[in-house]
Protein backbone atom coordinates (compact mmCIF):
# COMPACT_ATOMS: atom_id res chain seq x y z
CA UNK A 1 0.00 0.00 0.00
CA UNK A 2 2.69 2.51 1.13
CA UNK A 3 5.05 1.34 -1.61
CA UNK A 4 2.30 1.78 -4.21
CA UNK A 5 1.59 5.29 -2.90
CA UNK A 6 5.23 6.28 -3.41
CA UNK A 7 6.08 4.49 -6.66
CA UNK A 8 2.64 4.52 -8.39
CA UNK A 9 3.56 1.93 -11.02
CA UNK A 10 6.63 3.93 -12.02
CA UNK A 11 4.80 7.27 -12.24
CA UNK A 12 5.57 8.30 -8.63
CA UNK A 13 8.40 10.63 -9.58
CA UNK A 14 6.17 12.60 -11.98
CA UNK A 15 3.15 12.71 -9.68
CA UNK A 16 5.07 13.64 -6.53
CA UNK A 17 7.19 16.26 -8.28
CA UNK A 18 4.02 17.92 -9.71
CA UNK A 19 2.35 18.01 -6.30
CA UNK A 20 5.57 19.10 -4.54
CA UNK A 21 6.11 21.94 -7.02
CA UNK A 22 2.52 23.12 -6.48
CA UNK A 23 2.79 23.10 -2.69
CA UNK A 24 6.24 24.71 -2.79
CA UNK A 25 4.86 27.50 -5.01
CA UNK A 26 1.98 28.03 -2.57
CA UNK A 27 4.32 28.25 0.40
CA UNK A 28 6.73 30.62 -1.39
CA UNK A 29 3.93 32.97 -2.52
CA UNK A 30 2.35 32.93 0.94
CA UNK A 31 5.67 33.79 2.62
CA UNK A 32 6.54 36.54 0.11
CA UNK A 33 3.14 38.23 0.57
CA UNK A 34 3.31 37.81 4.37
CA UNK A 35 6.78 39.41 4.48
CA UNK A 36 5.50 42.35 2.36
CA UNK A 37 2.48 42.69 4.66
CA UNK A 38 4.56 42.68 7.86
CA UNK A 39 7.03 45.17 6.35
CA UNK A 40 4.28 47.67 5.49
CA UNK A 41 2.55 47.18 8.83
CA UNK A 42 5.78 47.71 10.80
CA UNK A 43 6.50 50.81 8.72
CA UNK A 44 3.03 52.11 9.54
CA UNK A 45 3.46 51.45 13.28
CA UNK A 46 6.88 53.18 13.28
CA UNK A 47 5.50 56.22 11.43
CA UNK A 48 2.49 56.36 13.73
CA UNK A 49 4.77 56.28 16.77
CA UNK A 50 6.72 59.28 15.51
CA UNK A 51 3.59 61.47 15.14
CA UNK A 52 2.83 64.23 17.65
CA UNK A 53 -0.02 63.42 20.06
CA UNK A 54 -2.38 65.80 18.24
CA UNK A 55 -1.67 64.27 14.83
CA UNK A 56 -1.77 60.75 16.26
CA UNK A 57 -5.21 61.43 17.76
CA UNK A 58 -6.41 62.73 14.38
CA UNK A 59 -4.97 59.72 12.55
CA UNK A 60 -6.54 57.35 15.07
CA UNK A 61 -9.96 58.88 14.43
CA UNK A 62 -9.95 56.96 11.12
CA UNK A 63 -11.25 53.43 11.72
CA UNK A 64 -8.89 51.88 9.13
CA UNK A 65 -5.82 53.21 11.00
CA UNK A 66 -7.18 51.78 14.24
CA UNK A 67 -7.67 48.42 12.52
CA UNK A 68 -4.08 48.42 11.20
CA UNK A 69 -2.70 49.16 14.66
CA UNK A 70 -4.78 46.44 16.30
CA UNK A 71 -3.52 42.86 16.34
CA UNK A 72 -6.76 41.46 14.94
CA UNK A 73 -5.49 41.93 11.40
CA UNK A 74 -2.59 39.49 11.98
CA UNK A 75 -2.65 36.18 10.15
Amino acid at each position, binding site marked *: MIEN*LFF*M*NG*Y*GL*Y*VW*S*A*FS*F*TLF*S*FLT*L*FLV*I*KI*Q*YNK*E*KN*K*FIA*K*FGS*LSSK*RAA*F*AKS*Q*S*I*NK*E*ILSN*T*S*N*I
Partner: protein
Amino acid sequence: MFKYFEPNKIFSITSKAPKYVLFLFIVILSIGLTEALILSPEDYKQSHSVRIMYVHVPAAWISLGIFSAITFLSIVGYIFKIRNFFLIAKSLAPSGLVFNIIALVTGSIWGKPTWGTWWAWDARITSMLILALFYIMYLVAWRIFEDKDKVFKVTSIITILGIINVPIIKYSVDWWNTLHQPASINILSKSSIHISMLFPLMTMTAAFALFSLLIFLMKYNTELIKIKNKGLDRL
Protein backbone atom coordinates in the same frame (compact mmCIF):
# COMPACT_ATOMS: atom_id res chain seq x y z
CA MET B 1 -23.52 50.68 -5.22
CA PHE B 2 -19.77 51.30 -5.69
CA LYS B 3 -19.54 53.07 -2.31
CA TYR B 4 -19.65 49.62 -0.65
CA PHE B 5 -16.27 48.93 -2.25
CA GLU B 6 -14.62 51.81 -0.38
CA PRO B 7 -11.38 50.52 1.20
CA ASN B 8 -12.09 52.23 4.53
CA LYS B 9 -15.37 50.36 4.81
CA ILE B 10 -14.19 46.89 3.82
CA PHE B 11 -10.79 46.84 5.59
CA SER B 12 -12.39 45.70 8.86
CA ILE B 13 -13.58 42.59 6.96
CA THR B 14 -10.54 42.00 4.73
CA SER B 15 -8.13 42.34 7.66
CA LYS B 16 -9.87 39.67 9.75
CA ALA B 17 -10.84 37.27 6.95
CA PRO B 18 -7.38 35.75 6.05
CA LYS B 19 -7.06 33.59 9.18
CA TYR B 20 -10.48 31.99 8.57
CA VAL B 21 -9.76 31.53 4.86
CA LEU B 22 -6.36 29.96 5.73
CA PHE B 23 -8.04 27.49 8.12
CA LEU B 24 -10.67 26.55 5.51
CA PHE B 25 -8.00 26.22 2.82
CA ILE B 26 -5.94 23.79 4.94
CA VAL B 27 -9.03 21.65 5.66
CA ILE B 28 -10.21 21.53 2.00
CA LEU B 29 -6.65 20.99 0.69
CA SER B 30 -6.14 18.05 3.09
CA ILE B 31 -9.37 16.43 1.87
CA GLY B 32 -8.43 17.18 -1.76
CA LEU B 33 -4.91 15.72 -1.43
CA THR B 34 -6.23 12.55 0.24
CA GLU B 35 -8.72 12.06 -2.57
CA ALA B 36 -6.29 12.98 -5.34
CA LEU B 37 -3.34 10.89 -4.16
CA ILE B 38 -4.96 7.95 -2.36
CA LEU B 39 -8.71 7.50 -2.91
CA SER B 40 -9.23 8.33 -6.59
CA PRO B 41 -8.74 5.48 -9.09
CA GLU B 42 -5.93 5.27 -11.62
CA ASP B 43 -6.76 5.76 -15.30
CA TYR B 44 -6.99 2.68 -17.54
CA LYS B 45 -4.70 4.34 -20.11
CA GLN B 46 -2.56 6.83 -18.18
CA SER B 47 -2.34 4.84 -14.95
CA HIS B 48 -1.28 6.93 -11.90
CA SER B 49 0.05 9.83 -13.99
CA VAL B 50 -3.58 10.99 -14.31
CA ARG B 51 -3.29 12.26 -10.71
CA ILE B 52 -1.30 15.25 -12.02
CA MET B 53 -4.63 16.43 -13.47
CA TYR B 54 -5.78 17.30 -9.92
CA VAL B 55 -3.21 20.11 -9.68
CA HIS B 56 -2.77 20.96 -13.38
CA VAL B 57 -6.41 21.55 -14.35
CA PRO B 58 -7.53 23.62 -11.31
CA ALA B 59 -4.39 25.78 -11.63
CA ALA B 60 -5.17 26.47 -15.31
CA TRP B 61 -8.85 27.22 -14.59
CA ILE B 62 -8.07 29.65 -11.77
CA SER B 63 -5.33 31.36 -13.73
CA LEU B 64 -7.81 32.01 -16.58
CA GLY B 65 -10.54 33.07 -14.15
CA ILE B 66 -8.27 35.55 -12.38
CA PHE B 67 -7.12 37.13 -15.65
CA SER B 68 -10.74 37.52 -16.76
CA ALA B 69 -11.60 39.13 -13.39
CA ILE B 70 -8.60 41.48 -13.65
CA THR B 71 -9.72 42.55 -17.14
CA PHE B 72 -13.30 43.15 -16.00
CA LEU B 73 -12.17 45.17 -12.97
CA SER B 74 -9.71 47.21 -15.05
CA ILE B 75 -12.29 48.08 -17.73
CA VAL B 76 -15.06 48.94 -15.23
CA GLY B 77 -12.55 50.80 -13.05
CA TYR B 78 -11.32 52.80 -16.02
CA ILE B 79 -14.80 53.68 -17.33
CA PHE B 80 -16.31 54.61 -13.95
CA LYS B 81 -13.03 55.94 -12.45
CA ILE B 82 -13.11 53.53 -9.48
CA ARG B 83 -9.55 53.40 -8.18
CA ASN B 84 -10.33 50.60 -5.74
CA PHE B 85 -11.13 48.25 -8.65
CA PHE B 86 -7.54 48.71 -9.87
CA LEU B 87 -6.30 47.92 -6.37
CA ILE B 88 -8.39 44.73 -6.30
CA ALA B 89 -7.13 43.78 -9.78
CA LYS B 90 -3.51 44.42 -8.77
CA SER B 91 -3.96 42.26 -5.65
CA LEU B 92 -5.36 39.37 -7.71
CA ALA B 93 -2.46 39.28 -10.19
CA PRO B 94 0.30 37.53 -8.11
CA SER B 95 -1.79 34.42 -7.44
CA GLY B 96 -2.96 34.42 -11.08
CA LEU B 97 0.65 34.36 -12.29
CA VAL B 98 1.66 31.63 -9.82
CA PHE B 99 -1.29 29.45 -10.90
CA ASN B 100 -0.31 30.03 -14.54
CA ILE B 101 3.25 28.88 -13.80
CA ILE B 102 1.94 25.85 -11.87
CA ALA B 103 -0.27 24.92 -14.86
CA LEU B 104 2.71 25.18 -17.23
CA VAL B 105 5.17 23.27 -15.02
CA THR B 106 2.79 20.48 -13.97
CA GLY B 107 1.63 20.23 -17.60
CA SER B 108 5.22 19.78 -18.64
CA ILE B 109 5.73 17.07 -15.98
CA TRP B 110 2.52 15.34 -17.13
CA GLY B 111 3.62 15.61 -20.77
CA LYS B 112 6.75 13.50 -20.29
CA PRO B 113 5.05 10.17 -19.35
CA THR B 114 1.97 10.84 -21.52
CA TRP B 115 3.35 12.34 -24.75
CA GLY B 116 7.02 11.45 -24.29
CA THR B 117 8.17 15.07 -24.20
CA TRP B 118 8.54 17.82 -21.58
CA TRP B 119 7.49 20.58 -24.00
CA ALA B 120 5.72 20.97 -27.33
CA TRP B 121 4.67 24.14 -29.17
CA ASP B 122 1.11 22.91 -28.99
CA ALA B 123 -1.65 25.58 -29.39
CA ARG B 124 -2.85 25.35 -25.79
CA ILE B 125 0.61 25.26 -24.18
CA THR B 126 1.78 28.18 -26.29
CA SER B 127 -1.33 30.26 -25.55
CA MET B 128 -0.91 29.53 -21.81
CA LEU B 129 2.70 30.71 -22.06
CA ILE B 130 1.46 33.91 -23.74
CA LEU B 131 -0.97 34.40 -20.85
CA ALA B 132 1.95 34.15 -18.40
CA LEU B 133 3.73 36.88 -20.40
CA PHE B 134 0.65 39.11 -20.11
CA TYR B 135 0.58 38.52 -16.34
CA ILE B 136 4.27 39.49 -16.16
CA MET B 137 3.70 42.61 -18.30
CA TYR B 138 0.77 43.59 -16.08
CA LEU B 139 2.79 43.24 -12.85
CA VAL B 140 5.85 44.96 -14.35
CA ALA B 141 3.66 47.91 -15.46
CA TRP B 142 2.60 48.45 -11.84
CA ARG B 143 6.28 48.60 -10.84
CA ILE B 144 7.45 50.83 -13.70
CA PHE B 145 4.86 53.60 -13.77
CA GLU B 146 4.66 55.98 -10.83
CA ASP B 147 1.83 58.13 -12.18
CA LYS B 148 -1.52 56.58 -11.17
CA ASP B 149 -3.51 57.67 -14.25
CA LYS B 150 -0.80 56.32 -16.54
CA VAL B 151 -0.59 52.97 -14.73
CA PHE B 152 -4.40 52.59 -14.82
CA LYS B 153 -4.36 53.24 -18.57
CA VAL B 154 -1.40 50.96 -19.34
CA THR B 155 -2.64 48.04 -17.21
CA SER B 156 -6.12 48.33 -18.76
CA ILE B 157 -4.62 48.13 -22.26
CA ILE B 158 -2.52 45.10 -21.25
CA THR B 159 -5.56 43.28 -19.87
CA ILE B 160 -7.72 44.12 -22.94
CA LEU B 161 -5.01 42.74 -25.23
CA GLY B 162 -4.47 39.73 -22.95
CA ILE B 163 -8.15 38.80 -22.72
CA ILE B 164 -8.18 38.10 -26.49
CA ASN B 165 -5.94 35.15 -25.64
CA VAL B 166 -8.38 33.63 -23.09
CA PRO B 167 -10.97 32.26 -25.61
CA ILE B 168 -8.02 31.10 -27.73
CA ILE B 169 -6.79 29.01 -24.76
CA LYS B 170 -10.29 27.65 -24.13
CA TYR B 171 -11.10 26.70 -27.74
CA SER B 172 -7.57 25.91 -28.99
CA VAL B 173 -8.28 22.18 -28.56
CA ASP B 174 -11.33 22.46 -30.84
CA TRP B 175 -9.88 24.88 -33.43
CA TRP B 176 -6.53 23.18 -33.97
CA ASN B 177 -5.09 19.70 -33.93
CA THR B 178 -3.34 19.69 -30.57
CA LEU B 179 -1.80 17.17 -28.20
CA HIS B 180 -4.42 18.16 -25.62
CA GLN B 181 -7.69 16.26 -25.58
CA PRO B 182 -11.00 18.18 -25.94
CA ALA B 183 -12.70 19.36 -22.71
CA SER B 184 -13.92 16.51 -20.47
CA ILE B 185 -16.02 18.80 -18.28
CA ASN B 186 -18.92 20.75 -19.74
CA ILE B 187 -21.23 23.00 -17.77
CA LEU B 188 -24.02 22.96 -20.38
CA SER B 189 -23.80 19.33 -21.48
CA LYS B 190 -22.91 15.96 -19.92
CA SER B 191 -19.30 15.66 -18.73
CA SER B 192 -17.28 12.67 -19.89
CA ILE B 193 -15.29 12.42 -16.64
CA HIS B 194 -16.33 9.83 -14.04
CA ILE B 195 -17.64 11.06 -10.68
CA SER B 196 -14.75 9.29 -8.85
CA MET B 197 -12.36 11.67 -10.65
CA LEU B 198 -14.67 14.67 -10.83
CA PHE B 199 -15.07 14.86 -7.04
CA PRO B 200 -11.32 15.18 -6.22
CA LEU B 201 -10.95 17.58 -9.14
CA MET B 202 -13.67 19.85 -7.76
CA THR B 203 -12.30 19.60 -4.20
CA MET B 204 -8.83 20.63 -5.38
CA THR B 205 -10.37 23.46 -7.42
CA ALA B 206 -12.15 24.70 -4.28
CA ALA B 207 -8.86 24.50 -2.32
CA PHE B 208 -6.98 26.44 -5.02
CA ALA B 209 -9.76 29.05 -5.17
CA LEU B 210 -9.49 29.49 -1.40
CA PHE B 211 -5.72 29.90 -1.69
CA SER B 212 -6.11 32.62 -4.33
CA LEU B 213 -8.68 34.33 -2.07
CA LEU B 214 -6.20 34.15 0.83
CA ILE B 215 -3.37 35.66 -1.21
CA PHE B 216 -5.71 38.30 -2.63
CA LEU B 217 -6.82 39.38 0.87
CA MET B 218 -3.24 39.53 2.18
CA LYS B 219 -2.03 41.49 -0.85
CA TYR B 220 -5.04 43.84 -0.79
CA ASN B 221 -4.46 44.60 2.92
CA THR B 222 -0.77 45.25 2.18
CA GLU B 223 -1.71 47.69 -0.60
CA LEU B 224 -4.17 49.51 1.69
CA ILE B 225 -1.55 49.86 4.44
CA LYS B 226 0.89 51.18 1.82
CA ILE B 227 -1.65 53.89 0.90
CA LYS B 228 -2.21 54.72 4.57
CA ASN B 229 1.58 54.98 5.04
CA LYS B 230 1.64 57.67 2.36
CA GLY B 231 -1.32 59.33 4.12
CA LEU B 232 0.66 59.53 7.38
CA ASP B 233 3.52 61.26 5.49
CA ARG B 234 1.08 64.00 4.45
CA LEU B 235 -0.16 64.63 8.00
